[in-house]
């Protein structure tokens, strides 16, 4: 094993690719048997995303989580028949030791934050599958579930722990590493599982964790099962959870084929999404393109299209592009969102989705779009929506206007471009199906201080709104005309690029999530803010800090001043 102290891993130089499929997995296996699937974690020690560490004891890095994210997506889209997912370890006596400490101790701060955010989103997508797709998750713990291992368990509907005197759950981050469980652990313990705060305090400072009956008594887990009864009980419980599922019995899944993209030095081109990077201005332009023909009218036809159905194909590309920007283009501070196509075509798709939302696949597509919009909300880059001639921000695409920090809409036409002036169009999609992390729609959040504007906006459903109308309705920020447009946008980009990226990240995150707190907003806001602060502090990351000292045998030295 390499000595972690002498190695810094070059996370900045390695490009991560989020596209994978079960045949290429190193760490996970999906085993489907009728209504029950097993999702088995068996991490290959040497298959690491970066150099300088080994993934011992089913610990994970971003590579392991990329596969997990892919597996969860596939279980939803490819296996409508699966009603219960049994998440378990492929190793004896060990469930999961959490995020790999040697990886964390050598990773750049930026990578750690990105990593935590992505793992959080993935855990949330498990809860999303349970709540909205009726695909229930049963976690069976056959050994030590420490830190991120227990946090992974916490995202499940039901946690079963082997009662063998060895298997235990723990969040040892504070006593062992001087950091926090960064994947929702603290929040889920008290908010989701409603563990008493004094019990939680003991639990989160007990390195070895809690096992057996006490783990049940404190609501850290749901059930303990002796080893000899384990498999039998898993089967029974999986069936019981599945019985309450709303998943269809006889539907056929669709295949998520590999996403094709062309890579250049300054961008990515997918079938419906293009990403263009301006390195001088440190910004990226993400353009969503529509197909040329409207949505098929029959559901069967759409089911046959599978992953080539535009809203699904497009959102997969968009998701991939956002993740690429987050991990591989860390210096690009601003994302300009554009769209290109015909309103009628987007409208036809939007209507189709709303009309068939009871179908399992259409429901999954809507949910995927919801999650991707949340991913945009949570991306620590400035987002601007630019509404130009030829754009088609209608219905679900119009959500992008409200997911960004500001929206600029061209008033009228640019001289010499013979395309009609841009319009935008609200539909039912903007009033319910895509809530943010705070549980409100983007328009509800936008109009928290002026509820009458929300009512007014509802009256505008179906209308093509030109710039002035959109401005009057409070749906856009600025509406420069032909004379000002180019200058305004240039100045906007240049000005934004001149600010401190840290200050912008903090400011944007504070401004984006007005309204009520939810489990999700707490996880992302409160917890990751604390975690990111602690990740920067000498008590964790200096040469004498706990994260650096871990595994060296010597103890950290703390600055005892409380801040």
């Amino acid at each position, binding site marked *: 094993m390499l000595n972690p102290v002498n190695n810094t891993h070059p996370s900045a130089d390695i490009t991560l690719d989020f596209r994978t499929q079960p045949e290429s997995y190193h760490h996970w296996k999906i085993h489907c048997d009728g209504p029950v699937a097993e999702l088995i974690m068996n991490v290959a020690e040497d298959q690491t995303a970066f150099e300088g560490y080994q993934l011992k004891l089913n610990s994970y890095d971003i590579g392991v989580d990329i596969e997990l994210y892919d597996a969860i997506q596939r279980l939803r889209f490819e296996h409508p028949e699966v009603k219960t997912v049994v998440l378990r370890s492929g190793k004896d006596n060990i469930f999961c030791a959490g995020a790999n400490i040697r990886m964390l101790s050598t990773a750049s701060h930026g990578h750690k934050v990105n990593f935590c955010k992505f793992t959080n989103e993935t855990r949330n997508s498990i809860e999303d599958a349970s709540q909205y797709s009726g695909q229930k998750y049963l976690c069976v713990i056959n050994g030590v579930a420490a830190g991120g291992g227990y946090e992974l368990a916490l995202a499940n509907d039901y946690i079963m722990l082997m009662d063998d005197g060895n298997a235990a759950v723990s969040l040892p981050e504070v006593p062992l590493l001087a950091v926090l469980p960064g994947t929702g652990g603290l929040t889920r313990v008290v908010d989701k599982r409603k563990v008493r705060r004094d019990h939680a305090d003991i639990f989160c400072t007990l390195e070895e964790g809690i096992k057996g009956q006490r783990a049940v008594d404190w609501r850290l887990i749901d059930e303990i099962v002796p080893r*000899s009864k384990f498999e039998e009980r898993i089967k029974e419980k999986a069936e019981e959870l599945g019985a309450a599922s709303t998943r269809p019995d006889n539907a056929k899944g669709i295949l998520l084929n590999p996403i094709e993209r062309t890579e250049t030095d300054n961008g990515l081109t997918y079938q419906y999404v293009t990403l263009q990077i301006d390195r001088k201005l440190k910004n990226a332009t993400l353009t969503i393109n529509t197909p040329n023909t409207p949505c098929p009218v029959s559901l069967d036809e759409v089911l046959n299209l599978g992953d080539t159905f535009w809203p699904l194909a497009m959102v997969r590309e968009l998701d991939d592009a956002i993740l690429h920007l987050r991990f591989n283009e860390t210096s690009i501070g601003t994302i300009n969102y554009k769209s290109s196509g015909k309103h009628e075509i987007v409208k036809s798709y939007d209507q189709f989705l709303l009309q068939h939302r009871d179908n399992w696949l259409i429901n999954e597509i809507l949910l995927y779009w919801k999650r991707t919009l949340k991913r945009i909300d949570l991306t620590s880059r400035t987002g601007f929506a630019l509404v130009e001639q030829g754009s088609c921000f209608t219905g679900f695409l119009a959500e992008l206007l409200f997911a960004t920090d500001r929206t600029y809409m061209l008033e009228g036409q640019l001289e010499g471009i013979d395309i009609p002036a841009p319009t935008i169009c609200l539909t039912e999609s903007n009033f319910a199906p895509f809530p943010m992390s705070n549980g409100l729609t983007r328009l509800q959040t936008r109009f928290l201080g002026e509820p009458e504007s929300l009512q007014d906006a509802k009256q505008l459903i179906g209308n093509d709104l030109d710039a002035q109308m959109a401005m009057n309705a409070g749906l856009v920020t600025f509406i420069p005309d032909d004379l000002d447009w180019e200058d305004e946008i240039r100045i906007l980009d240049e000005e934004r690029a001149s600010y401190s990226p840290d200050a912008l990240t903090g400011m944007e995150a504070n401004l984006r999530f007005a309204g009520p707190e939810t489990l999700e907003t707490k996880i992302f806001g409160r917890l990751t803010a604390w975690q990111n602060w602690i990740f920067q502090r000498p008590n964790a990351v200096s040469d004498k800090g706990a994260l650096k000292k871990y595994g060296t045998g010597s103890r950290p030295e703390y600055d005892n001043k409380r801040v």
Partner: protein
Amino acid sequence: MSTFDKVDYDSLIPNNVDLSSDRSLQRALEKWHPNFIKWWMDMGPNGFQNSEVYLRTAVGVDPEGWAKFGYVKMPDYRWGILLSPKEEGRKIPFGQHKGEPAWQEVPGEYRAMLRRLIVIQGDTEPASVEQQRFLGNTAPSLYDMRNLFQVNVEEGRHLWAMVYLLHKYFGRDGREEAELLLQRRSGNVDKPRILGAFNEDTPDWLSFYMFTTFTDRDGKMQLEALANSGFDPLARTTRFMLTEEGHHMFVGRTGVERVIQKTCEIMKQHNISDPFAINDVRKYGVVDLPTLQKKMNFHVSVTLDLFGSDISTNAANAFNSSIKGRFHETMIDDDHQLLNDTYPILKNVNNKFILSDEPAINAVNARLCDDYINDCVQVVATWNKVIKSFGINFTLDLPHKAFHRKIGDYSELSVTPKGDIIEASTWNAQQHDWLPDNEDLEYILSLMTNVTEPGKFASWVAPPKAGINGQPGDYEYVKLAA
């Protein structure tokens, strides 16, 4: 038990920890003791609880007190709480706290780590009693039967020693852990003992001799590593335990030696010069030397797994925290803090083992393991001397450190007893040459007969060179209950 019927624990339990004046400890023991006795009756030697056994009892730690011999029924054995005498002004000899006065109370920051170490150590003691509980029924002699029971009651006493520490220093958690030590069961699928080797069967006496030679020797190494602990009560407890552990290893070493002696005698007597003429040897009801080698390979490899990974963060933490040192820590010539030292670790590079220098503090497990191997090498050498004295062309060899491992970095490799890394398929095809197969084990089992006539021994094992406490060869070490 009514309140008027209190056991006088101070007289029942030989101790040098001032038990009579420690009310809280007495209260804890009052709860634990009946459960211990129940455990002993359920899981201790099967069928011999009423027999009178010629046992050594430790009633004090001074030379007169620690070896009192006499007949006693095992449930009446006086399990004492005995610590080596306190060294006034003792200083911590290693780790971050080197030079500080040894702790008489548990430091809060190390409480969890210490408790875990004590629980793991404590768990092995009742486990081995459970593993050996049926062996009394096939004892090759009363001498051996008595030795088995001596080992068993002393493992019981070692459990007491660990439970004393848990009760005295670890509050409610400690009491819960003490209770759990009586609830786990060796080999039980639902409540297994903590460490793998302590869930293996000890089905026959050759296994018992091997276990006491090799697995109890791991116990010795672990106790030696704790004997210099910064936590003084742990250091003093383990030092006294070591005096008893020595006898267990004696039982094992001389046991195997007597098996070898008998085999060689038979080979000589019947002019069998080829040690690999297994069927010729087995005809006479003794254990052939190649099978002994295979048994040894098995027990050594299973025991090496008890040391954990060569490179270990936990071990480094325990060392740096001045809780668990190295073998003969105070005799090692270095800074005892391992701030800048390295230690060579065996590593696989392109299917060859090479030595690679690693930070010594992360390698304390590897070092303890290597010290253990050195200790074993000397034992095997005494066995080979016996074989050689008969002029038989055979030597027993300790298997390679990486052979047949289930834990640590070597567990992913397929390694021969000589240390060659080979393909897994080849290893699987050849493993019968290296590890006992069913036929071997059945043969050994077939030799197990109960010999209870004083002075008589089973066909496959020679008598000992001397009796216990100077007793004559036909001494009745166990008076079997009618």
